[in-house]
C-alpha cells in the first residue's frame, strides 16, 4: 500500500500544476529579473509581477503589499525585527503569545540584546488568546504584538480581528503568522486588520524555500537583508523566480479550490476524530473543537508515549507528527534540546504528557479509505504500547490516571 501522509502541517507535496508552472523558469526563462534591459531579464520580471498579484489575491491584499522572502521563518523575522527596529523611538516592549512558532519566539534573545523587552500573553485551554491577560500586558511602551493566526500543532484559529481592534485603539502594531491559514481557510487581511502577515508556500503545495510577507501599505519596516534593489527594497537578493512563480500558482489554485477542499477536509477530520474517540480510551483532543484548521486532528493518549506511537504509525505506513510539527528536537545536540512542546504546555497539558501528543494533519488528497485504515490500526498500536507501559500497569492496579 502507498504511504498515508497525515503530516501536512509539516509540509505538503508540491502540486503537479505548480511544478509545471515553475519549470520553464529554470531553463527557458532563467534570466536575472534585475537585468531589465536584456530580453533574458524581462519574462522573469513579468512572471514575478503576476505571481505577486496571485498571492495578493489570496488574502485580499494589493499587489504592492506583498513581498517574497526565503521562508515563512524569514517572513516572521523580517516582520518582527523590521517593525521593532522601525518603531524603536516609540517604545521598546513587544508582546508574543505563548503559542507562537519558534520563528517568532526564538527571536527574543536577539531582540532583548538590542534593547527590546518581550512580554508574553497567555492562552486558554483551547489555545485561544486570553484578552484579559493581553489587556494587562499592554503598556505605554508596547509597540508590537505577535499573534499566530492558526496554530499547526493544535489547530486553533485565533480571534485576530478582535485583537487588531483592541490594539489599533492603542496605536500598537499587530503581526500575525498566517503560515497555517493562508491558502487553507479564507483570509482577508483588511478584515483581520493586521499590519503584517506571514505566508508560506510549502504549506499549500508550493515549494519549500519561499515565503511571503504582507506589509500593509504605509507600514514602516526596516529590512534585515540588505543589498540590491529587489522586492521594493524590503528584501535584497536575486529573485528565486521559479519558486515565486510556483507560489503564485499555488495561491491561485488554493483560492479557486478552497471551498471544496474545506468541505472535504471537514468531512474527513470529523470521521477521524469520531473514530478515534470511540475506539480509544483516555484520548484527549487538543485545541479548539470548532475554531480550528480544516483537516487538523490533534490529541494525546494517556499511558502512551508519542514518539513510539509515531514510530509505529510510520512502520504501518502512516506519516504523522508529534510535538511541534515544524521543529522536531531530534537534531538537537544534547538532551537539553528535548523540551516539552511549548504550545501544549501553554494550553495546560503537563510536560510529561506533551511528548505523548500526535498531530494528524490532513489535506486535499487524503481519502476516506486512508482515514479508515488509520482508524483500523490505531487501537492495536495503542494496546501494544500500553501493554508495555508501567504507567498503564500501575493504572490497572491502582486506578491512578496520568492526569
Amino acid at each position, binding site marked *: 500500500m502507498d504511504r498515508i501522509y497525515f503530516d501536512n502541517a509539516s509540509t505538503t507535496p508540491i502540486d503537479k500544476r505548480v511544478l509545471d508552472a515553475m519549470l520553464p523558469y529554470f531553463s527557458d526563462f532563467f534570466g536575472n529579473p534585475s537585468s531589465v534591459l536584456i530580453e533574458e531579464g524581462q519574462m522573469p520580471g513579468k512572471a514575478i509581477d503576476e505571481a505577486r498579484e496571485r498571492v495578493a489575491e489570496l488574502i485580499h491584499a494589493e499587489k504592492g503589499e506583498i513581498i517574497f522572502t526565503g521562508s515563512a521563518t524569514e517572513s516572521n523575522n523580517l516582520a518582527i525585527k523590521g517593525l521593532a527596529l522601525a518603531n524603536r523611538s516609540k517604545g521598546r516592549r513587544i508582546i508574543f503569545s505563548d503559542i507562537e512558532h519558534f520563528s517568532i519566539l526564538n527571536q527574543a534573545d536577539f531582540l532583548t540584546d538590542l534593547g527590546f523587552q518581550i512580554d508574553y500573553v497567555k492562552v486558554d485551554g483551547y489555545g485561544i488568546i486570553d484578552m484579559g491577560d493581553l489587556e494587562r500586558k499592554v503598556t505605554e511602551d508596547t509597540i508590537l504584538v505577535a499573534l499566530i493566526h492558526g496554530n499547526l500543532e493544535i489547530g486553533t484559529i485565533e480571534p485576530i480581528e478582535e485583537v487588531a481592534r483592541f490594539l489599533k485603539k492603542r496605536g500598537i502594531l499587530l503581526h500575525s503568522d498566517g503560515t497555517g491559514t493562508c491558502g487553507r481557510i479564507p483570509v482577508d487581511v483588511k478584515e483581520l486588520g493586521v499590519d503584517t502577515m506571514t505566508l508560506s508556500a510549502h504549506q499549500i503545495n508550493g515549494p519549500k524555500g519561499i515565503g511571503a510577507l504582507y506589509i500593509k501599505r504605509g507600514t514602516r519596516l526596516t529590512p534585515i537583508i540588505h543589498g540590491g534593489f529587489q522586492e521594493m527594497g524590503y528584501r535584497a537578493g536575486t529573485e528565486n523566480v521559479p519558486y515565486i512563480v510556483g507560489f503564485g500558482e499555488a495561491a491561485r489554485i488554493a483560492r479557486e479550490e478552497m471551498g471544496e477542499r474545506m468541505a472535504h477536509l471537514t468531512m474527513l477530520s470529523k470521521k477521524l476524530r469520531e473514530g478515534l474517540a470511540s475506539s480509544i480510551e483516555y484520548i484527549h483532543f487538543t485545541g479548539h473543537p470548532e475554531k480550528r484548521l480544516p483537516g487538523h486532528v490533534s490529541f494525546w493518549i494517556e*499511558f502512551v508515549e508519542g514518539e513510539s506511537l509515531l514510530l509505529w504509525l510510520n512502520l504501518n505506513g502512516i506519516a504523522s507528527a508529534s510535538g511541534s510539527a515544524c521543529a522536531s528536537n*531530534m537534531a*538537537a545536540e544534547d538532551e537539553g534540546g*528535548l523540551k516539552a512542546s511549548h504550545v501544549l504546555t501553554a494550553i495546560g497539558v503537563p510536560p*510529561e504528557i*506533551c511528548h505523548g501528543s500526535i498531530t494528524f494533519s490532513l489535506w486535499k488528497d487524503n481519502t476516506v479509505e486512508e482515514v479508515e485504515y488509520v482508524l483500523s490500526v490505531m487501537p492495536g498500536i495503542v494496546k501494544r504500547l500500553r501493554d*508495555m507501559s*508501567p504507567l498503564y*500497569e500501575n493504572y490497572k492496579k491502582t486506578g491512578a490516571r496520568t492526569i
Partner: protein
Amino acid sequence: MAKGPYSDIVMDHFMNPRNMGEIEDADGVGEVGNPACGDMMKLYLKIEGDRIVDAKFKTFGCGAAIASSSMTTELIKGKTIDEALKLSNEAVSEALGGLPPAKRHCSVLAEDALRLALEDYKKKKGLA
C-alpha cells in the same frame, strides 16, 4: 527503507522488544522516570544465587527508551550481580549500534533502573 536517526538494532529492539513484561515474584524491581523527557522504566529481575536468571521490563517512552530497556535485559540475563553492576550506559548504547546525542540519556535511564533493581534485591535479601 531510508535510515532515520535510529540504528537498525534500535529499530529491531523497538519493534520486537525482548523480555517485555512483568515478573510477578521478582527478586528485585527498579523503577526510574524522567518527567521532563516523559520516560518511565521498570525493570524486574529474577536472581538465583548471585546470578540473574531472568529479567523483564516495562517502559513508557520513546524508541530509544524501549530499545535500551530491551537491550539491557538481554545483556544482563545470565550475568552475575557483580558483572551486571559493571554494565555501563555506554555499553548499552554501543550494543544498540549507537543512539542519537539527544537520546543518550535513555541508556542512562536503563542503567539507573538496573542499579535500582539490584539495590532492591540486596535490600530484600538484607545484603545492603
